[in-house]
């Protein structure tokens, strides 16, 4: 068991906590329950995700400016703001759900495929020259 693996496990549990809070905020019908799901489950879980993510980038010496790190931070913030907006304004529409869930899905995409500036530059060069990357 290494330090990175422990951090990854904590991050995974926290991501599940955030996703659970997000779903609970849209499944519950009582506004107080929805607020509790966001402010007591999803938001603290997201802070843990950010903290473990920052510690992982420090441990692995990954620059914060890489698209998969910076994009993940910004998109997760967008998801959280949309979630807070939906419970404060008591919105439970499909649009409100997707406004919070789609940025989260995009973060998961970034975390899996981990695009870097080098890989994006190589891809764009391949597209302009017609070669396969």
């Amino acid at each position, binding site marked *: 068991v290494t330090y990175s693996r422990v951090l990854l496990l904590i991050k995974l549990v926290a991501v599940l906590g955030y996703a659970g809070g997000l779903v609970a905020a849209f499944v519950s019908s009582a506004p107080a329950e929805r607020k509790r799901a966001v402010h007591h489950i999803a938001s603290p879980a997201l*802070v843990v995700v950010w903290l473990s993510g920052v510690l992982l980038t*420090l441990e692995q010496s990954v620059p*914060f400016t890489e698209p998969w790190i910076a994009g993940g931070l910004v998109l997760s913030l967008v998801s959280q703001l949309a979630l*807070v907006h939906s419970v404060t304004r008591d919105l439970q529409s499909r649009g409100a759900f997707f406004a919070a869930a789609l940025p989260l899905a995009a973060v998961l995409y970034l975390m899996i495929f981990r695009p870097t500036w080098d890989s994006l530059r190589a891809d764009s060069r391949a597209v302009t020259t017609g070669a396969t990357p």
Partner: protein
Amino acid sequence: LNPLRDLRFVALLEGLSLAVLLFVAMPLKHLAGLPLAVRIVGSAHGLLFLVFCAALYRVALERRWPLKRSLLALFWSVVPLGFLVLDRSLRDELEKSEEA
């Protein structure tokens, strides 16, 4: 939990981390050749800034702040030592809301 009190606490931490980054970590990097200080304090500051944005958005929505008030709070959070101004205005608002 009072969201305004949470925001005041986070704003203080965020402002202090910016001050430490600018006045301690950056001189350590550029004058003493210790880049690790910026890496650590910069990471902490980035994390605190995200938490500050989330807390600010919640307070702005719940207390129906005008856009100008929210933007001003954001402005003071990125100005070195601006957190002192922001803390004073948040403290005044908190005292008023507790009196009411």
